[in-house]
């Protein structure tokens, strides 16, 4: 009985461990990259002559960047123009609270609707929202306005109420100028607060201060290629470095398996020396199975071995193991239909 309980507990423990590992793996992978990486990237509060929406209107706009390498769906996320206090919501779930809040206060909070492909942001891409207070114009038109001449803020909340990003727009942002991240996707949250040191005002006067709705703020260049093109025009450095890496990797493997080989040799000498010739095989008293001669049994064994292409522990040796499994322990036996008494 005690053994049974112990075994049951062991099985339960094993199950628990497996479930824990699965949960941990899935949880970690879900947190790896996604909505929490979305970033405010650029904003324009007074748009007189810049970007137009699909109706040809100039509206204040802001841009969100997906810095991950996977598509991120923004549906059911919340954009607000002030910090929403979620600490005193009682038993209500943050999602439900934000939901209700967005319905009651559309001038403060906007819930990104479901089912619009425009709100799915492709990897390393941008999405532009128009802050015109006209949600009837589409999912990318939010329910409140950004106004020029006043200090405005934008807060991006995940579906479960976690704060994803914050942007504080300066009041003195000139017309047709944007407030933009120096480099796309940099995290500028410092203890949940906006850190303005990564932001700059752009007026579109030159390439460095270009206004780039839906585009990268900083021109994307493959710095590696530029670097090698400039500093290693003959390819000598990369050749020496790369060959060094290839050699190091294979040298390590060589050392490791050289040591394994030594250990294996020692073990083989002790336990598994091959007989030098058939004559060296000690005679045994074991009788041949049934009436079959030894040669026939050897031929059958060889044919079986060739047919099954079975791997043995050593080449040249064929081992037959007794099958100790019973109907209680063998899966094959359990799955076989039992004979039916008629």
């Amino acid at each position, binding site marked *: 009985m005690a053994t049974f309980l112990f075994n049951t507990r062991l099985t339960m423990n094993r199950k628990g461990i497996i479930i824990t590992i699965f949960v941990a793996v899935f949880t970690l992978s879900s947190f790896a990259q996604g909505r929490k990486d979305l970033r405010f990237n650029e904003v324009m509060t007074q748009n007189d002559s810049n970007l137009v929406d699909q109706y040809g209107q100039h509206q204040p706009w802001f841009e969100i960047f997906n810095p991950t390498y996977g598509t991120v769906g923004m549906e059911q996320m919340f954009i607000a123009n002030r910090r929403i206090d979620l600490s005193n919501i009682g038993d209500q779930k943050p999602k439900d609270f934000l939901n209700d809040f967005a319905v009651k206060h559309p001038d403060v909070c906007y819930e990104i609707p479901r089912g619009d492909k425009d709100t799915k942001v492709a990897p390393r891409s941008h999405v532009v929202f128009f802050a015109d207070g006209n949600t009837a114009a589409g999912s990318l038109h939010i329910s409140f306005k950004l106004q020029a001449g006043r200090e405005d803020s934008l807060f991006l909340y995940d579906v479960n109420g976690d704060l994803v990003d914050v942007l504080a727009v300066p009041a003195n942002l000139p017309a047709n100028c944007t407030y933009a991240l120096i480099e796309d996707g940099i995290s500028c949250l410092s203890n949940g607060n906006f850190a303005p040191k990564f932001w700059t005002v752009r007026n579109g006067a030159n390439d460095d201060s270009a206004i780039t709705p839906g585009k990268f703020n900083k021109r994307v260049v*493959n710095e*590696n*290629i530029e670097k*090698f*093109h400039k500093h*290693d*025009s*003959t*390819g*000598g450095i*990369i*050749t020496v*470095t*790369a*060959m060094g*890496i*290839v*050699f*190091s*990797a*294979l*040298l*390590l*493997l*060589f050392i*490791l*398996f*050289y040591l*394994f*080989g030594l250990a*294996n*040799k020692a*073990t*083989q000498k002790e336990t598994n020396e091959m007989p030098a010739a058939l004559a060296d095989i000690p005679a045994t008293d074991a009788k041949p199975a049934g009436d079959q001669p030894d040669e026939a049994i050897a031929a059958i064994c060889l044919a079986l071995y060739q047919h099954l292409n079975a*791997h*043995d*522990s*050593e*080449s040249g040796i064929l081992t037959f193991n007794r099958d100790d499994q019973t109907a209680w322990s063998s899966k094959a036996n359990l799955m076989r239909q039992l004979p039916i008494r008629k």
Partner: protein
Amino acid sequence: MVLLESFLSSNLMQFWNFTGFANCQWGNIIMLCVGLFFIYLAIKHDFEPMLLVPIGFGILIGNIPFQPGNEIGIYEEGSVLNILYQGVRQGWYPPLIFLGIGAMTDFSALLANPKLMLVGAAAQFGIFGAYMLALALGFMPDQAGAIAIIGGADGPTAIFLSGKLAPNLMGAIAVCAYSYMALVPVIQPPVMRLLTTKKERLIRMKPARKVSQNEKILFPIFGLILTCFFVPSGLPLLGMLFFGNLLRESGVTTRLAKTASNAMTDIVTIILGMTVGASTQASEFLTKETIFIFFLGFCAFVVATMSGVLFVKLFNLILPAGKKLNPLIGNAGVSAVPMAARISNDQGFKYDPSNYLLMHAMGPNVAGVIGSAVAAGVLLGFLG
């Protein structure tokens, strides 16, 4: 009657404009001849038929002239060929092929004599020699890296890397890599003879020791961890290679190993070969760059063979008298498995009909597979 004639003639004219005859250009004719030549080489001379037949026929498919716009061509979005081609463009097929290679490769020859791994590493100099040459010819570093990988003599690796670094050159690089792999019996022997003396070619190597099952199981596990910690960018190829090998050696997943090494590899090879062939549309393929790529590919194979053979000779200087290596196995450091190892054996036979080098050459040969995948990872890490 006149109306009917006019109707018929306009329809026939329209039909004529859709036919291949009306859209044919010299480039198409040249490429069709190239495709036919590949098929001829494969069927008549048995040059890598598993690869050259699908590629050759793919070239025929890709160069049938047609009027664009009907979702027919491989570069037209939504066409069947385009969908199959995504596996090449996005790099899905090469890791699957590597899974199969892992499941069919027996690394015992390498494990029995692990120092042969270094020969596999040395032969990768062909890749970087070609890289320097490509830079000298005016290619940008990313293009040079993609072209240079031809020196690894490994088709899937070449496709994988060129798809990442220089997708526009991928068709030419893939065809070049596979063509030279088929031509290994022509390219390597003169280089091997040139760099070795008769005395060296007669060196007999000791039979390899027996390799335990534990070693075979540990190799893919430690191989993955060690190589990928060095070069994480090689993970798609190395991960699948070692995974396939573990399926084979674990002894408990024989069915999976069989599927990976037979049915799955065959399916992927068919689709990969055909789509790579079809991607060589004359307009994309017949360019000055292609000629350079074929020249550089040839140089890469020669340099890889030279560096493998010379490394063995160098290595012999520090090895004791009874443990010297036959330099004829140096060519096998390129990863054209098992063709390069067979060439070592054939060349050895010519000078001593009782000197069997095949299993000795398989060591550097399979090490070359790992080495070229690591080299590809390094290039991707530096230039990607």
